């Protein structure tokens, strides 16, 4: 009976493998895969990225597709788990036969997916900030988000201009926070600044008062927070309660209108280093990215009736990159074709900076324009700092 059970199982598994629906590949369509964590701890990234992805696909198809090619989206949830992400990427490549994949949005997943993308030779446009994904560049992997290096440098330079050179940092004990801590420390050294105290906290901690008290004793001139919510909000509240008066600079991890709502009064006068999408209406007309940012923010709000998050830009720029690459191809689409089109040079103003992809630059940002801006919270609103 065990044998029966066993053979039955095997037959079932085989049926799963053989019985899959085979898609009729049409020359006139772009099969566009999308992977992001729409559940799990990274859902705060994936959820809004998924929304803007859906929005843009809808727009393309309403306008007759990209270069006459209908866009067929295939999306999966990675749960923020790199094993699941790996499985879903293989499924996109093999079962869904997509031409190009946008995603994922966390570094841990991206590092795993990079090896699979290279093995399977499929262009993968990640929405993560870790530079090591594209440095050194590998043939099929690209990214759109500002790097942790960009953002940490921006935060530190801002502090330096203000004359704050003795810095304290507090980061979460998760992937995002750990990467931030590494870059803040490295860049502070380059800028000749001093990290007097580096604190950590668990991503689900409820009280960071002990850390705040130690930071206060350390006599720092500015505190930098590198984490995603709820941690930073709790820190702001704890800091306010403990009478912590030192200036606080948050990273782009909290760059969302929700911060104003949740941290309330305790966020007053603090700074946030953010992509431009946080303040689409306050950007000066002279900012070369203003039109792009204002447009997508308007459309997103109109469709979903909710404020736009900065992470929307990561997905927007990734889809935009796909659009421009595909438009460069006149003949039939191929995975190699798309990757080569990107590498042969694609430039456009994105939400995250002047994007300029080339054979050597798979990260997009062109260093002439900072992908991030500094905002301050005044009277419960974000204003340019």
């Amino acid at each position, binding site marked *: 009976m065990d044998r029966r059970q066993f053979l*039955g199982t095997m037959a079932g598994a085989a049926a799963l*493998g053989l019985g899959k629906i085979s898609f009729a590949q049409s020359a006139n369509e772009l099969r566009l895969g999308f992977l992001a964590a729409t*559940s799990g701890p990274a859902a705060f990234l994936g959820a809004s990225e998924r929304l803007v992805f859906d929005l843009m696909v809808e727009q393309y198809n309403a306008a007759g597709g990209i270069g006459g090619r209908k866009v067929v989206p295939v999306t999966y949830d990675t749960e923020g788990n790199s094993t699941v992400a790996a499985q879903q990427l*293989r499924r996109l490549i093999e079962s869904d036969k997509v031409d190009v994949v946008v995603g994922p949005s966390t570094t*841990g997943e991206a590092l795993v997916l990079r*090896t699979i993308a290279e*093995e*399977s030779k499929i262009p993968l446009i990640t929405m993560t900030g*870790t530079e090591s994904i594209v440095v050194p560049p590998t043939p099929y992997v690209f990214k759109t988000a500002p790097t942790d290096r960009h953002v940490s440098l921006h935060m530190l330079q801002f502090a330096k201009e203000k004359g704050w050179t003795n810095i304290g940092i507090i980061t979460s004990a998760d992937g995002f926070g*750990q990467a931030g801590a590494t870059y803040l420390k490295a860049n502070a050294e380059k800028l000749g600044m001093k990290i007097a105290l580096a604190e950590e906290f668990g991503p689900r901690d409820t009280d960071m008062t002990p850390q705040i008290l130690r930071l206060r004793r350390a006599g720092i001139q500015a505190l930098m927070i590198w984490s995603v919510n709820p941690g930073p909000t709790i820190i702001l509240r704890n800091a306010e309660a403990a009478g912590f008066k030192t200036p606080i600079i948050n990273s782009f991890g909290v760059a969302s209108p929700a911060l104003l709502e949740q941290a309330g009064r305790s966020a007053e006068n603090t700074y946030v280093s953010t992509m431009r999408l946080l303040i689409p209406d306050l950007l000066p007309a002279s900012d070369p990215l203003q039109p792009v940012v204002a447009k997508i923010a308007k459309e997103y709000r109109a469709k979903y009736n909710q404020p736009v998050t900065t992470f929307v830009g990561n997905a927007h720029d990734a889809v935009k990159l796909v659009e421009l690459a595909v438009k460069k191809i006149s003949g039939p689409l191929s995975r190699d074709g798309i990757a080569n089109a990107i590498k042969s040079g694609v430039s456009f103003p994105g939400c995250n900076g002047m994007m300029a992809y080339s054979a050597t630059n798979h990260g997009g940002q062109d260093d002439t324009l900072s992908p991030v801006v500094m905002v301050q919270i005044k009277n419960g609103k974000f204003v340019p700092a």
Partner: protein
Amino acid sequence: MKSANSSLRRNFIRLGLLVVGIAVLDVALTSQFYRSTLTLSLIFAIAAVGLTLLMGFAGQVSIGQGAFFGLGAYSAAFAIQQLGIPPLVGLVVAAVVPGFFGYLIARPILRLSGNNLALATLALAAVFYVVATQWSSVTGGIDPGITGLPALDYFGLSHIHVVLWLAGICLVICTAVALLLIDGRFGRALMAIKTSEVVASCTGVDVARTKAIAFAIAAAYAGIAGALFGYFLRAFNATSFNVGLSIELLMMVIVGSLSTVWGAIFGALAIMVLPNLLEGFDHAKLLVYGLAMVAIMMLAPNGLGETLAKLVTRRRVAE
């Protein structure tokens, strides 16, 4: 004794069928996605077989196998990247290190039983996770974790084929060892302990030592599985080894069947395939997955594998 031998023979025939099954599937599966699902199933099955030995035969619960799984993954990666040891030898390292730690920990921890043992092993998994996220000089923490493990493209075969076969071979060897152990003196000692530790010690079984060895074997199996997991993905980080992994391994064993090693293999396959079947539920996936677990535990408390097997037998008898 004769019946024991014939059951051993039957089990080895099944083992042969397992090899044939893997070979057939390797050819039949045209999609890398299904092939990788199969590979992961085989990998997790190794850990599950070890856990069955510990739980089903020695009667000792563990919700901490994820720790040994992770320990195996890290020690293999360390051996390859820092010591320059070839991956195949790395597998041995991945068995020995967790096995050794398992043996050390087993002595004090296995004095506990029932709920307390379950909780102590759970605590072990939780502590391991914290260490894995924090000791970044060795583990790389959560970001970036371990990256850049070599592609195993031996004999002109692609990485995914090689890992599939490596996992298959390891599973067959580990299962064979488990079957031989169960069939021999050691297995009888385990079952005596499961029935009654007092009686076992009266019949001359060194209870503490036997339990510790069973724990060490389960840890070594989990370690091998962890190493293969790392080889397969070529990059991994601490989040893969959270408490959820330990619970998932436990589920595999219980969903399969506690009373045979075949149940563990079935359970690993079921738990790996189930989430893929639920893809259509989108946001309700977690809810449906939880309810499926509840239904299995309510209707088939001895394991889905065992219950299905019984249904088949009953129908065959009825025929």
